């Protein structure tokens, strides 16, 4: 028989009733099987404020109740139930959202702290897959030219087409090794020329092992580059006055250096071979 959702609404509703209606309501409430004492008290309290009003016969009160109050209470109950249900649903949704937000926050904080503890780039894992690069910039004033000795150097037979490609583009600096391991065959050669420079790429292969040579030149004031790497710090390896940056990247060893505006890379899947090649660059 709880038909009123709040004290305020209850008071408001009861005040709106006439004394006759109030009496009918009291009569019906007391005769109801599921007696709501709080509600009855509220009715009696309200009735207490209306003393002096002559009472009504119970039959008439019941009649009035059936006519006027019962339909109102039924519709009121329905609306109240719906209101209660909506309120509960809202609360449940809020609670659920709060739990989900808490779990996500806990995961992020926990993961972040762990990542911090092991010094990894946690957020990079998600937003850029935690990639590491060795970045470089080359400015025209940074030009470092090696000695012009290529004509006097006998490069390995396999590298002669590469030497010719460089010389055709006016590159006579010593960029090629005299040593080249046996058994490697040309896998691919790609040469690009345009008004903004050139790119010469030679790949060699022997079974699963590869060696790659890459020389590129951009005819611009500043070149920005990235070399993919794993979490091992680049190593500087100096031979014959040239600083080679040795970078490891997913099973590959790469030496990078610059000669003027030419960016040079030699990479190998075999670490020792890479060092032997670098040692033989004059």
């Amino acid at each position: 028989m709880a038909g009123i959702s709040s004290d305020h609404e209850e008071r408001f509703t009861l005040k709106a009733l006439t004394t006759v209606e109030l009496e009918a309501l009291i009569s019906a409430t007391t005769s109801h099987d599921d007696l709501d004492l709080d509600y009855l008290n509220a009715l009696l309290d309200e009735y207490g404020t209306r003393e002096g009003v002559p009472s009504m016969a119970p039959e008439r009160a019941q009649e009035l109740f059936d006519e006027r109050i019962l339909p109102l209470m039924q519709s009121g109950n329905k609306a109240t139930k719906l209101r209660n249900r909506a309120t509960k649903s809202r609360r449940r949704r809020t609670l659920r959202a709060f739990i989900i937000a808490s779990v996500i926050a806990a995961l992020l904080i926990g993961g972040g702290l762990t990542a911090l503890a092991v010094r990894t780039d946690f957020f990079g894992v998600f937003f850029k897959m935690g990639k590491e690069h060795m970045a470089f910039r080359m400015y025209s004033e940074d030009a470092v030219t090696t000695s012009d000795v290529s004509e006097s150097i006998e490069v390995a037979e396999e590298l002669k087409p590469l030497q010719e490609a460089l010389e055709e583009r006016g590159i006579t600096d010593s960029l090629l090794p005299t040593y080249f391991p046996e058994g490697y065959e040309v896998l691919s050669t790609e040469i690009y020329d345009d008004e903004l420079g050139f790119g010469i790429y030679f790949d060699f292969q022997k079974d699963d092992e590869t060696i790659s040579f890459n020389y590129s030149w951009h005819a611009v004031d500043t070149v920005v580059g990235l070399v993919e790497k794993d979490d091992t710090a680049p190593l500087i390896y100096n031979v014959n006055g040239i600083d080679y940056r040795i970078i490891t990247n997913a099973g590959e060893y790469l030496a990078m250096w610059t000669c003027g505006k030419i960016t040079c890379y030699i990479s190998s899947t075999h670490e020792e071979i890479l060092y032997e090649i670098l040692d033989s660059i004059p």
Partner: protein
Amino acid sequence: MTKRLTKIIAIVLMLTLCLSAPAMAADARSSDYIRSVSAGASGGSGTITVSFSITAKRSMNTLGASMIEIKKANGVTVKTFHAASTSGMTTSSATSFRGSVTYSGTSGEQYYAVVYFIAKDSTGYDTDSVTTAKV
């Protein structure tokens, strides 16, 4: 019962994430696709020409720049070149590629470019991006 289950799932998730983050990071901190990328810009009098190059670790189905954004010095993008609608930005079946695009803007304005690289084959893909100097 439901609350207990929720708690257990949350704890398991948290532990999984905490433990897997470093592992993922270690695996991801290298590329199976891209070896190196580079880009430069030249120009003047309101024109910028962007030159870029990329080398992959093996032959790729798609290799090059997927997108190049031309930006004013204040960071506002004034032009976007997409590989799908601009020729000469990508190639196929290659281990290396270089290309260029040119944009004619307003004289006296400084521009720079952000080059988004892609290397893709049947096993997956990788991306990188390089921001050039202002010209």
